[in-house]
């Protein structure tokens, strides 16, 4: 299989998470202090790099069948989470993730917090806000980089996709100096959910011992089928909504993340 689907999937998944991390970093930097914000971001990126460097080569030592079974199961479960959320958001059962309002929430909290200096960090609040934001959003990317990269025996290609997404989002963020609220996050999450679920199904079944008709070419059918089924569920859930134009506004099933 070519490295292109791997790089593209990791790129899109990473771009979505990078947009969310950028919102937090901008809120900390523009409201509090840039130096401490960058320190927090740098430490978080270093931790993520260490996790990839340690787990990436270790996981590739596992036998391919066992690796595909475990990683396939994890990717399918993880991908279904993304798909479920994206479908609930697309149909109005869960509120859409809004970068502009998320930014305002962070700015309000950052303005209210008191300044405290610890060691070389001048503003501890800005440091921890930036560190936590980048680390938590980055962990999802690390998970995708390691699972996809290990299965394809090409962690390097996955890292290239992730790094490219971080650079693109960071450069755009620096250029506009505002949260990237116009990025169609839900559509991107829907696409990533489809890819993660499809690869999870494919590798999981292979790891369990099944052989796909057409081998790797089965993915060319599996990905569109997963997309069609997901779109089908979206249409089915939208229909009752369209039939009730006077219904109350969308209620949140769980807090938006």
């Amino acid at each position, binding site marked *: 299989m070519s490295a292109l689907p791997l790089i593209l999937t990791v790129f899109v998944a990473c771009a979505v998470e990078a947009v969310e991390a950028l919102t937090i970093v901008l809120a900390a930097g523009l409201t509090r202090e840039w130096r401490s914000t960058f320190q927090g971001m740098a430490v978080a990126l270093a931790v993520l790099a260490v996790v990839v460097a340690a787990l990436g080569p270790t996981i590739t030592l596992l036998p391919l069948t066992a690796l595909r079974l475990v990683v396939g199961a994890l990717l399918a479960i993880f991908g279904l989470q993304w798909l479920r959320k994206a479908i609930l958001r697309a149909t109005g059962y869960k509120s859409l993730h809004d970068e502009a309002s998320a930014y305002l929430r962070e700015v309000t909290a950052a303005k209210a917090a008191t300044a405290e200096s610890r060691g070389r960090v001048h503003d501890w609040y800005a440091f921890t806000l930036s560190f936590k934001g980048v680390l938590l959003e980055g962990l999802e990317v690390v998970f995708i980089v390691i699972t996809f990269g290990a299965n394809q025996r090409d962690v390097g290609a996955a890292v290239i996709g992730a790094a490219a997404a971080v650079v693109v989002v960071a450069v755009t963020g620096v250029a506009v100096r505002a949260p990237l609220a116009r990025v169609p996050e839900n559509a991107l999450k829907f696409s990533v959910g489809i890819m993660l679920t499809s690869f999870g199904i494919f590798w999981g079944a292979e790891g369990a011992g099944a052989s796909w008709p057409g081998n790797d070419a089965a993915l060319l059918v599996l990905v569109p089928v997963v997309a069609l089924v997901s779109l089908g569920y979206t249409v089915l859930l939208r229909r009752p909504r369209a039939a009730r134009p006077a*219904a109350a506004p969308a209620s949140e099933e769980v807090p938006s993340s």
Partner: protein
Amino acid sequence: MKRLRSIGAFWYDFVVGDDWRVAVVVVAALALTALLVHAAGVNAWWLVPLCVFAALGWSLRRATAGTRP
């Protein structure tokens, strides 16, 4: 102990998420596929996708039941 519990809760939420039943269906589907392939000699490649689609539909139905968007 409290820290261990919160770390466990974080990883559970990270991997399993809002609906643990989806994870159970995926794991059961893979186990059944392995059983069919190795014990019965059936190339059950179709079982995992079918179970995944059913699990997604079931989970969405549970999440939206009784909710009027």
